[in-house]
C-alpha cells in the first residue's frame, strides 16, 4: 500500500524497541473477547487506475456533464469559478494544515481568515464576522439560539415562512431539545413575509427573515427592524445568495443584529450541496455571544504584526458545557476559498457579476412568460423568481435533463403544497442569452 512506508525490516526493528514480538501483540491491552475474528468485509484495494475508472463511472451517473445548463438555485448556485481559485486553494500548505493552534507556523491561514472576516463584514455591512460555520442553516440555528438565550422572558423565535425550508427544519432540530419553539410568520400574496402578522405576535425572543427570500423576492427589512425595535428583541436576517449584496443594500444598513448566510456562491463548487460555507456576522454588541472561531490581529515578541485565534474563552474546549456552541472544526478551507474569490472579483467585479445575474434573471423571466409561464408575483427579485408552469411542463423538464443536461427550475410544491405547478427559476452569469432563448423554445 503506497501510503504505508514501513518495510519488513522497519517493522521488526521498531517492534523490538516497543518490546513486542509481532504487530498483533501491540493490541494485548484489548481483551480478546472484544476483538473481531477474521477481517473486514471490504473489497480489496484498488490501484489508482482502477479507482479512476470506478469513480468516473459513478460521477457520470450524475447528470452534471458537458453543456450542463443550470437554471436552479434554492440555496446552491451555479457561478463561474476563476482558475486561480482552485489553483491557489490546492496549495498543500493551506489544504493539509490543521486548525491554527500554533500561530508561528500558521500565519498563512490566520492572515487569510482575518482578511476573510474583514471582507465578509464589508459585504454584509456588519461589525464582526466569524471564521465560518458549516452552512447557512446551521449558522442561522446558532443565531436563533443567541436570541433565545439573551431573552429570559420568551421561548419562541419568529421565523419567516419564506426562509429556506431546510433552514427552518434545522432551527427546529437545534432548538427544540432546549424547550424552545419556532413560530412561522406567514407570507402575503406578493410573495413577501407578512409584517402585519408579525406585529401581532407576542412572547417572541427574536425575528428571523431571509432576503432575498426562498421564492427570490427582496424583503423590506426596515419594516421588520422597526417591529424588532418596538418589541425590544433581536433582528436576524439570512440569505442563501451572497452575490446579491454586490447589488442590493446589505443587511447591516437595515440594522440587523445578527446575519447568517450561505457563502457557496463565492467560488465554491456546488458539490451536491456540501461542503458550502456558513457565514455568521453580528454587531459589536454581540461579539462575545457569537459562536465559532475568531481571528484577531496582535504583535509578536519583536513588535511585528501577526494574527492569532482569539476570544477562545467563548468556545467549547475552555468553557465546556457553558460554551456558546460546541462548534470546533468549521469550514476553514472554504472560507479561504471565498476570500480568494472576493479578492479576485474585487469591488468592480462583484458589482458587474451581480448586475449580470439580475439582468439575465429578468430576461429569463420575460422569456418564460412569452413561452406560456405565468409570473407568480410582481415583486422585485435578484436572480431567482417563481413561475407557474403551463400544463405538461414536468415531462418536458425531465426530457430536457436527459437529452440536453438542462435543469429548468425546481418544482416547489413539496415545500409549499399551496403553490402547485410552481417552479423556482434562477439565472446566473454562467447562462447566456442564447441558452435562455433555447430554453424558451424548448418549453413552449
Amino acid at each position, binding site marked *: *500500500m503506497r*501510503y504505508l512506508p514501513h518495510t519488513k525490516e522497519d517493522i521488526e526493528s521498531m517492534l523490538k524497541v*516497543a518490546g*513486542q514480538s509481532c*504487530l498483533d501483540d*501491540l493490541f494485548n491491552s*484489548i*481483551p480478546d473477547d472484544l476483538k473481531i475474528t477474521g*477481517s473486514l468485509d*471490504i473489497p480489496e*484495494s484498488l490501484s*489508482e487506475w482502477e*479507482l479512476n475508472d470506478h*469513480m*468516473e463511472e459513478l*460521477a457520470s451517473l450524475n447528470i*452534471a456533464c458537458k453543456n450542463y445548463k443550470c437554471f436552479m438555485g434554492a*440555496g*446552491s448556485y451555479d457561478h463561474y469559478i476563476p482558475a486561480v481559485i482552485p489553483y491557489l486553494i490546492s*496549495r498543500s*500548505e493551506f489544504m*493539509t494544515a490543521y*486548525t491554527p493552534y500554533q*500561530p*508561528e507556523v500558521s500565519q498563512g491561514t490566520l492572515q487569510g481568515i482575518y482578511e476573510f472576516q*474583514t471582507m465578509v463584514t464589508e*459585504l454584509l455591512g456588519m461589525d464582526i464576522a466569524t471564521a*465560518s460555520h*458549516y452552512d447557512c442553516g446551521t449558522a442561522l440555528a446558532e443565531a436563533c439560539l443567541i436570541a433565545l438565550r439573551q431573552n429570559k422572558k420568551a421561548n419562541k423565535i419568529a421565523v419567516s415562512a419564506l426562509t429556506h425550508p431546510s433552514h427552518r*427544519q*434545522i432551527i427546529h432540530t437545534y432548538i427544540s*431539545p*432546549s424547550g424552545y419553539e419556532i413560530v412561522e410568520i406567514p407570507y402575503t400574496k406578493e410573495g413577501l413575509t407578512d409584517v402585519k402578522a408579525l406585529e401581532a405576535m407576542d412572547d417572541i425572543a427574536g425575528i428571523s427573515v431571509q432576503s432575498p427570500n426562498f421564492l427570490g423576492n427582496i424583503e423590506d427589512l426596515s419594516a421588520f427592524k422597526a417591529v424588532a425595535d418596538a418589541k425590544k428583541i433581536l433582528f436576524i436576517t439570512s440569505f442563501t445568495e451572497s452575490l446579491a449584496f*454586490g447589488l*442590493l443594500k*446589505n443587511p447591516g444598513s437595515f440594522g440587523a443584529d445578527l446575519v447568517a448566510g450561505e457563502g457557496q456562491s463565492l467560488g465554491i463548487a*456546488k*458539490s451536491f450541496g*456540501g461542503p458550502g460555507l456558513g457565514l455568521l456576522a453580528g454587531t459589536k454588541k454581540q*461579539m462575545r455571544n457569537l459562536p465559532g*472561531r475568531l481571528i484577531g490581529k496582535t*504583535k509578536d*515578541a519583536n513588535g511585528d504584526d501577526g494574527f492569532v485565534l*482569539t*476570544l*477562545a474563552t467563548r468556545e*467549547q474546549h475552555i468553557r465546556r458545557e457553558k460554551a456558546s456552541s*460546541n462548534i*470546533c*472544526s*468549521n469550514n*476553514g*478551507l*472554504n472560507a479561504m476559498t471565498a476570500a480568494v474569490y472576493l479578492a*479576485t472579483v*474585487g469591488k468592480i*467585479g*462583484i458589482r458587474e457579476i451581480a448586475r449580470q445575474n439580475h*439582468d439575465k434573471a429578468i430576461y429569463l423571466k420575460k422569456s418564460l412568460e412569452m413561452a406560456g409561464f405565468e409570473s407568480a408575483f410582481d415583486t*422585485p427579485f435578484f436572480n431567482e423568481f417563481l413561475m407557474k408552469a403551463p400544463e405538461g411542463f414536468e415531462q418536458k423538464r425531465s426530457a430536457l435533463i436527459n437529452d440536453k443536461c438542462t435543469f429548468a427550475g425546481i418544482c416547489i410544491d413539496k415545500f409549499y403544497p399551496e403553490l402547485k405547478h410552481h417552479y423556482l427559476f434562477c439565472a446566473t452569469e454562467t447562462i447566456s442569452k442564447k441558452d435562455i432563448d433555447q430554453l424558451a423554445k424548448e418549453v413552449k
Partner: protein
Amino acid sequence: MIQQPGTSGLIFNEPLLWDKSRNGRCAISLPKSDVERDLLDENLTGDSPDLPQLSELDVVRHYTRLSQWNFGVDSGMYPLGSCTMKYNPKTNEVQASRQGFASAHPLSGDEFSQGALKLMYNLEQSLCQITGFPAVTLQPAAGAHGELTGMLIIHAYFAKKGKQRSKIIIPDTAHGTNPASAALCGYIPVNVKSGPMGILEPETIAAIMDEDTAGIMITNPNTLGLFEANIKKIAEIVHSKGGLVYGDGANMNAIMGIVKPGEIGVDVLHLNLHKTFSTPHGGGGPGSGPVAVNKVLEPFLPIPRIVKELDTYKFITDCPDTIGKIHTFYGHFGIMVRAYAYILSMGAKGLTDASKLAVLNANYIKESLKGTLNLPYDRPCMHECVFNDEFQAKNHITTVDMAKRLLDYGFHPPTIYFPLVVHGAFMVEPTETESKEDIDQFIDAVKAIAGEAEEDPEKLKKAPLLTKVTRLDEVAAARKPCLRG
C-alpha cells in the same frame, strides 16, 4: 546527530489585501453582458462592497506568499495528538473534482443523481462494516456536529420512551467538545475520573449511573491513548439502568479491523472522516462527522436517509421518529467522495495495517522518548502517547517551550496541555504514514531539545527563532480585540 529539516529560507513579507489595492484593478474578466441592463429600484440597491482591487498576479502572489507561512502535513511530520494528521492522498482531490460530482446540484432529483446516491450508500455500508453498526448517517458536517447529532438521537430516544433524563456521564479523558454537545441537548455533564491505570473502572460508573442519567460519552481509545478495556462491563452497567453508551470515534484510527465499537456495547458512535479517513483538514475544516447507530436508534437518524431498491437509490424523508434535518442538504458530499476513495484505495487489509502501524509508531516513540520526557502512564499505548514536562521543570522549562522549539527543528508540535488529566501534557500521535526515518528524526529532535533545556534554557524560552513571526501576544489580542482590518 541526524540532520533536522528545520532551517531558515527566504520568507517574503506580504501586506494585507487592501494595502495592495489600487482603484481600477480587477482580477476577473467577465464576458460582456448579452442582455439588456435592468435598472433595479434605487431604494433596493446599495453601494458596491469595498473589496480590494487587484490584478490576477497580485492575487496569486498574495496567496502564494501566505501559504508559505503555513506548515502542513505535506511540509513535515504533524504529530498532533487526537487529530490524526495522516497523509492526505492526492488522488482523493482528483476524484472529488470530477465534474459529475463537483457540479452536481443538490436538488437535481434522485433520478438524476444516482452516482452521488450510490457513492453515499456504498460509503455508509463501508462505515457500517468498519464500526460494526447496522446504520449510518453521513449528514453531520464535522466531528462536533456528529456528537451533537448523536446526543440529539439519545435525547429523542428518551423523549419517545416518555421519560427524559437530565444527566450524562463524561470521563476526564473525553474530548472537550463532549460536554458542550451534551449541554446543547439540555443534559448536565457529570464528570468522572479515570482509575490509576488511566482507564475507567466499572465500579466508578456503577456508583453514579442511575435512572436519571441518559448514559455515558466515552472516547475509546481514550485521550491518554489507552484502550478502555472495561468498556463491555461499563456498557452493561449503563444499559442495566436503561442508559445508552455514546462512543466518540475520533480515535478510530487505532482500531480499524481490530475492534468494532458496535459489537462491544457502544450504541451510537461518531467518526471523523478528516481524521481516520484521510481527508484534508484545510486549516480548520471542512470536515465530516458521520454517525453510526444500532438498530434501536436507527429510526431517530436525521433525514433524508438513503435506501436502495433493486439497483436504484433514493432519498427518503418519511421517518416519523427522526431528529429532523441537521444540514441544509446532505452533509459534506465532497468530503465523502475523498473518504470513499481512501477506503477503496486501502481495502480491508490496508485499513487494518494502517491501524497496526499507527499503534506501532506510537509505541516506538513512547519507548524511545520515555527516558527523555516523563511518561505519566507507562503502559502499552494505542495510536498516541502522552508525556509531560516534569523532568524539565527544574530548569523552569515547560511543555510550551519545548513545543515552540520543535518548530525550529522543522516539526509541528504535538497537542499540548491536553488531555487535562495530565499536567503539562505533550500528546504525540505520529499516524501510520510517517516512516521510521522521519520518526527517528523527530525523536532525535525531542532529545536535542531536552538537552538544550539543561544547557541553554533561555534559548527555549525565546523559541521559535526561525519562523516568520515569533511568539505572539495573545493577551493583547484578547484584551483589545481587532477582528477586522
